[in-house]
């Protein structure tokens, strides 16, 4: 009886932990995120070779990389007439001024867990390519995470590069 109970409990416990470990890590990058407009990184960064930091301009200056302001989108699409039909909800307010500019509410793909402080700036200055963490973005129509950004991922890279592995650097 006890043996059955023990094995049943173990199965339940292990099963529970597995579900807990894989099913509910809300901080993980998400593969299922669909954006409000069908923006393609492949077209922009891949086909047209627009540098990442043309749009994510704060990456070298701040802790966050920054999402481009709508003005940046319109800067190209408003004047070049590229895709003006499909993009008219975004660009039209800028030309006819009769309605307030469109605010794009992107869905977040990458999230850091609590208790972690990450800063883009030193990584960019150290010459780490964006793709190191974010994968071959220039080939993706829709962003899907390639790497699981967890502590092991960070520490691996820091070990290889021989840079700080002090806990407090990220955990403060």
């Amino acid at each position, binding site marked *: 009886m*006890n*043996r059955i*109970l*023990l094995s*049943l*409990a*173990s199965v*339940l*416990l*292990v*099963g*529970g*932990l597995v*579900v*807990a470990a894989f*099913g*509910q890590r*809300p*901080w993980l990058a998400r593969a299922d995120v669909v954006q409000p407009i069908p923006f393609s990184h492949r077209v922009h960064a891949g086909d047209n070779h627009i540098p990442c930091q043309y749009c994510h301009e*704060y990456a070298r*200056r*701040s*802790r*966050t990389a*920054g*999402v*481009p*302001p*709508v*003005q*940046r989108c319109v800067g190209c699409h408003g004047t070049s007439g590229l895709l003006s039909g499909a993009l008219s909800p975004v660009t039209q307010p800028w030309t006819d001024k009769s309605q307030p*500019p*469109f*605010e*794009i*509410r*992107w*869905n*977040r793909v990458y*999230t850091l867990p*609590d*208790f972690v*402080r990450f*800063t883009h*700036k*030193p990584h960019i*200055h*150290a010459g780490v390519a964006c793709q190191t963490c974010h994968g071959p973005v220039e080939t993706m129509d829709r962003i899907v995470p390639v790497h699981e950004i967890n502590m092991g991922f960070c520490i691996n890279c820091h070990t290889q590069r021989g840079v*700080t592995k*002090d*806990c*407090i*650097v990220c*955990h*403060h």
Partner: protein
Amino acid sequence: MPDGPDGFSRRSFIKLAATAAAAASVPACEPASRKLIPYVIPDNDVIPGEPSFYATTCMECPAHCGIVARVREGRVIKLEGNPLDPVSRGAICARGQAALQGVYNPDRLRHPMRREADGALHEITWDEALDTFNDKLRAAAGNGAKRVAIISSDLGPALRTILIFGWASPWRLQVPSIFYEPLDEAAAYQAAFDCFGRIDLPNYRIDRAEFLISFGADFLETWRSPVELTRQYAAFRAPRVRSAAMTVGHAVYVGPRMSLTAARCDEWLAPPLGTEANLAMGILHEVAAQGWVRPESKVDVNALKTFAAAYDPGSVEKQTGVSAAIVRRLAQQFAQANGAIAMAGTDDYETHLATSILNAATGNLGRTVTFYERNTPASRSSTKGIEATLESMRKGEIDVVLVTGSNPAYMMAPALRFNEAIAKVPFVVWFGTVPDETAEHAHLLLPIHHPLESWSEAPTRAGARKLVQPVMQPVFDSRAFGDILLSSGHAGGAPANERTAATSAVLEDMWLSSYEEEVRASRPKPAGAPNAKPAPMSPVEAAEIKRNFAGFWEQARREGGTFGEPQVADVSLKPDVLKTPPKLAAPPVTELSLFCYPHIFLYDGRGADKPWLSEIPEPVTQLVWDTWAEVHPDTARRLGLAQDAIVELKTPQGAIEAPVLISDHVRRDVIAVPLGLGHTALGRYAKGRGANPFSVLEFGRRTSSVIAHPTGKSRRLVSPLSKSDQMGRAIVEAISLDDIVNGVAPKREAMPPEPYEMYDDIPYPKHQWGMTIDLNSCTGCSACVAACYAENNLPFVGKEMIDRGRIMSWIRIERYVPTSPDAPQLYIAPMLCQQCHHAPCEPVCPVFAAYHTEEGLNGQVYNRCVGTRYCENNCPYKVRRFNWFKPEWPEPLNLQLNPDITTRGAGVMEKCNFCFQRIRYAEINAADEGRPVRDGEIVPACAQACPANAITFGDINDANGAMMRRRADNRPRDYLALEDLNTRPAITYLRDIYRRRGKA
């Protein structure tokens, strides 16, 4: 285990199964923000994730320090001193720090409100509110020009101009006004006028003096300009060669209670309340009698002798109880010092008069005590003016009253019968942030911008002009006071154009016209006619001035104003003042006197709505969140009062009740009570705590005769400090001046025979962060504590939790009462994590949450911490704090939180980490620029705020850095707190220097 052969019971199974089920069923929680919303049009000044800094001026007290606001993503998260400002010089006090909790106060008025006939307040729109306001003004203006009055504190030049020209004159109103500060120094103004013919107050240069005597002026706490005077006092106290001998400035405090200022002075004299002037006159008598009047002062010695004739040291001894020998010594020290200052903070005229004459006669006027040319005096109403306006209110001659920046219902003495006066006014408009006692009388409540959200100009002294600028968008649906007046002025008939529509435009135009005037005045005058008017300007010239002004204005906004050197005015004592010797009353016959003083943080009560200011212990008493009555032990015994017993204090004006604090730091015949609490409004943090001493005082006085009765009730006074005695342990140390001069090495208690090492030493190849704290400079003002609360997201916990030892401050002011007379009056030191090299907290952590970082810090990894609190138990400095609860910041106080660090949750241990976010910020910048971190580049919040510059931060590996040099330059004052424990702290303290007392 009793259950079976394999030790697995049914009970264990259920436990395990329940755990597993619970683990599986925890819903996948969605993080708060899953959306990324970019700017539509980016703000060029904002880099998300990086702070912006805006210079403005602190409006928390009449000193008006220049400050710099640190703004992240459009909200202000920290205030620091503006290094360009000669008043603050980059430092800021606790009250200034707490201005943040004024902007984000959850009890701020959020919408305009109107009081309906039933007395209830109803929310209305701004249009309705302004229409109501203007209708009432129109009706009042129709009844006469003097039917609208204003009650306010000093508005400053810009708002004053708007009030008069932009609002009152279009409405054809003359506006009887009450410009008033409850702790206004009427006596000081009167003395400055009588002695020197000045309508402003003198400025002090303590750093240029060697001797200082303060008659009740708490210049390290609240008096005049505490940040500036604290900085000067630190220079005054610095040991250096003065008059050919190594010494520190000598300071004497005269007052009935040992304030923090008194504790930091060499001597504390406590003559009977009201006889401070006798002592000052006694000193004056000796100065005259001994021929110490400086000839260059042009003071008539014989007139002075007659003036002070009645105050020979013998008589003064009888009147004050201060021995004649001390009076003679003080006079000699004062007269013979190379620079001396007498200052008065009492509420009687005679002390101010005597100190003014003393400063003048000893040749200190113009050196350590100066008046400035072209100084704009504060706008303040005379007592008569206040009484007259209140009288016309009572008579029903006023139809509308505007109240702003002032809380007369709380602060005005009952004798003025303010409540009666305001009740007679049919329409009261209150402009403010947190509704206070006066707002309860108002019919229309208009939420105005906090000074951190609005434009104006701070009242300031000659040489400087200080801008108050918005550092962020308003938190609530409020409007600027100036803008409301301007829009109302338009309704009253002022021509509307864009230059008169907003306070900012009016302000800019005011600066432009004074700029033009200055340029015009500086143009060369025609030869031979120095008084001739300069030639009128050509249009080309005028256009050029406008162009140049654009650059000037840009710079002024960037720097927070213009900071020129004021010109010292040539002032001398008016001979007439010596003609009538003061008639000083005999020592008071009352058995007991009440002495009220401004609380170092709450000041006159305006700080009570900011929880940090109640949470930080008052440095001398170490009490929090309450009003106390400080009673001498002998008096307490006589009256039958125990600690915490509530005593009723009855004066001719009224009665208050407060719990008793039994303390040696007050005269036997005096009961000392701090101002600041006893609010019946002013939001959740102020309302219903403590007692309001203003309600038992005469107007303009801070003392009264009093009768004290025990009430039989009691209320616990709470202090986070467990002991006032160091129990012989070396926590806060001091060294006598004699020992410094004679090179006597300080005695250490109970040192281990030799430092021992059990393990290999930890190397610090890059940096080892450390701190040097000079206890001789530290005044205990607690600016560092408030700065830490702001920078590190420390929660406030309230009185009950502090009583249970749950205060969260990472840095605190330790206060110990010496047990031997050969010591400073109080031992005071900031205590924070010592970042020990052999840290007792680290090895006891079972989960490695407390660990040693590569740069010598005792790191605390919050997400590893499981809350065993072993580390806290093992810490000999008691600087670790445990989160017993999830900290709460009611909206929108949470907007102040620093986004650069983790906000800790329940069950987690936390502690000082030398503001690691600032260390990291500097390290990243340095690495990105390919250079090492510069010395002085990293400044933790506590060091940044310190007005006395007592804290220096730096790298222990850098022997030439300022921090290590400060240690080396001050041997043998350096010591380690509790060195005998062999913890090897990274913080080195420099011993406080005291003068041996007891010598005449």
